[in-house]
């Protein structure tokens, strides 16, 4: 059954709303408009305006309301249109959602799910294209996930809702139109990274929209005799060190692919952990492929040049093999 990522997100929302009357979807244009990325099309009709709640353009307000509602018995799913807009709500997410359980001495957990679109590639320029999920991954007290596959687009929502703590889900804008053949959509875990492709020579660590570029690079490199293992981080916080380190201990090399800017990035964090946990297993410096450090430009060729591309990943991997290749 060919299923698109968008449909998987939609079905996950629908099933969550069906399964649990505490679940509420709120956000800008989630109702009548059907969701900015059409992920909630038809849900208003099925569940009504109380549970499919169009909000004013008040990110700080409605994210905070989601926190309060979660504190008081609901299971809200708050959709923020893009990660760039979520900066308006950062205060509520960081200062309240993430901190509340701790500063109340364990009395108040916040079972909130926040979904947002992230990433570039659609010529949306410098206020709608960034990958700021590493900022969220920095924050103790929240979990951050990035479904890259159709299976995860569906499967991660249910465990996120079941989680007693805030979970932020990042959906890369380029993935909504991707499809895959899936037997059945079922809940997946939100604790482990996944090995998407087994290999022996080098570990490619990617997540979200970059996963498929890494997979393409792995296919290309396999023609040249380099056997890549590709890890999909899936969970950006807390990071699944075990899966990463186990792979690097086997391959002795790692390239991290992260669409965010490299400075202070999740890529930097993964590299640091590889260094801490597998230094003596490394046969080459850990490399990374990140976005160029510019606000995302509008012009297509510039946007593409700013983003990690398959060719960059291939080059970074080849570089690790130096003269051996």
């Amino acid at each position, binding site marked *: 059954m060919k299923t698109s990522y968008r449909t998987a997100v939609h079905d996950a929302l629908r099933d969550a709303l069906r399964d649990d009357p505490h679940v509420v979807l709120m956000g800008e244009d989630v109702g009548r408009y059907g969701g900015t990325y059409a992920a909630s099309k038809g849900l208003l009709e099925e569940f009504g305006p109380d549970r499919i709640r169009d909000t004013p353009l008040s990110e700080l307000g409605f994210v905070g309301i989601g926190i309060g509602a979660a504190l008081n018995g609901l299971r809200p799913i708050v959709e923020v249109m893009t990660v760039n807009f979520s900066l308006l709500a950062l205060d509520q997410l960081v200062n309240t959602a993430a901190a509340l359980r701790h500063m109340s001495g364990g009395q108040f957990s916040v079972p909130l799910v926040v979904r947002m679109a992230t990433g570039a590639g659609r010529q949306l320029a410098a206020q709608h294209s960034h990958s700021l999920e590493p900022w969220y991954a920095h924050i103790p007290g929240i979990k951050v996930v990035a479904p890259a596959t159709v299976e995860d687009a569906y499967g991660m929502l249910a465990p996120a809702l079941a989680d007693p703590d805030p979970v932020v889900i990042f959906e890369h804008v380029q993935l909504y139109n991707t499809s895959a053949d899936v037997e059945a959509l079922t809940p997946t875990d939100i604790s482990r990274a996944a090995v998407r492709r087994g290999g022996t020579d080098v570990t490619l660590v990617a997540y979200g929209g970059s996963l498929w570029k890494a997979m393409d690079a792995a296919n290309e490199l396999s023609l040249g005799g380099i056997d890549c293992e590709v890890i999909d981080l899936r969970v950006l916080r807390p990071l699944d060190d075990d899966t990463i380190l186990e792979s690097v201990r086997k391959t002795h090399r790692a390239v991290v692919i992260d669409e965010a800017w490299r400075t202070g990035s999740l890529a930097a964090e993964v590299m640091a952990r590889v260094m801490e946990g597998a230094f*003596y297993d*490394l*046969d080459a410096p850990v490399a990374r492929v990140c976005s160029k450090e510019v606000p995302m430009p509008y012009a297509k060729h510039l946007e593409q040049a700013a983003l990690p591309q398959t060719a960059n990943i291939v080059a970074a991997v080849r570089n690790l093999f*130096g003269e051996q290749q």
Partner: protein
Amino acid sequence: MPSLGADMDEGTLDEWLVKPGDKVTRGQIVAVVETTKAAVEIECWQEGTVSELVVPVGETVQVGTVLATLLEPGERAEKPSRKPPRPSKRAAAKPATAPSRAPSGAVAPPTVPQRRRWVSPAARRLAQSLAVDIDAVSGTGPQGAVTISDVEHAAATIEHVAASKEPATKPITKATAADRAAQMRKSIAAAMGRSKREIPHYYLAQEIILDNALTWLTTRNAQRSIDERVLPAVLLLKAVGVAAQRFGEFNGFWRDDAFQPATGVHVGVGISLRAGGLVAPAIHDVPDKKLDELMDNLSDLVARARSFSLRSSEMSDPTITVTNLGDHGVDAVFGIIYPPQVALVGFGQPAQRVCVIDGGIRVVTAVQATLAADHRASDGHRGALFLSAINELLQQPDLLEK
């Protein structure tokens, strides 16, 4: 780290003979470096004050790595520890230029990147567990780094050697005789392989009658104590040196597709080492030296070659090489040129021969002199003249005395 030969990629700093603040003069020996061939004393080519010893003792660095920085007379230290420029990928893998071309202020050219030898952490750990001497492993990874596969390769080689020599795989420590011999073998193999691949050799031979020379030398030595006596080899050396001065196309280097004549005549002397292997360090300015001085130089050179303590310039400077296998009974030696030199003169055993001279038969003491030369730099005709010049010089030994 100066390049002391075409086959030298790296060296290990054994000892610093100067410290920051010391004044150094041109030609002063400032350090001892362990190479695959020998422990070599490193000369400094600038005058000045030692600013910083960049490479610590025990470290193995690539040729071209800055070993130390100097301040020119009057110059003051900029910053307490100026970091050297980061290595660039291209340059790191390239052998450095000769130290004589180093700009002022550094023992080696500062434009050539320097860095600690790169060994991947995993390779280092593997080497430890396999008892492989990591310093002896050459790197094929990015920018010359030693990787796991390099160590595995080295381990396989050691095992092979060990299997043929000793039953147990003993940890190989640096500079054991066997290890050094193995490394030297590799170096010689590399240099000679390159020579035979690249240099179109031609060979000429000529019998040289030594009666005049030997008689003259015996008389000369008879008046001297054993410490002042001169070996016949020295006469041959001088004759080659003087001839090479006249025939410049045999004295110099083939570099970048062109012959570069050398300014002085520094004759490399092939010295076989007792543990096996060969070095050919230079005696400098042979045509300008008296026989006694050459004899002293030669004794000294042989002694130091065999104790693995040659100087950098001796290793890198030869402009032409002489090899003498006469002591071991061979009649003639057709040598392989040591790149980037362009000529090698060989001598066999001086022996009594029956010879027709002026229509009469005479018994003479003669030696087979041979020339192996690079046809890119010279032609056989000139080679013949060059050999003849050596012959003529040996017929008038008193002219070689001065």
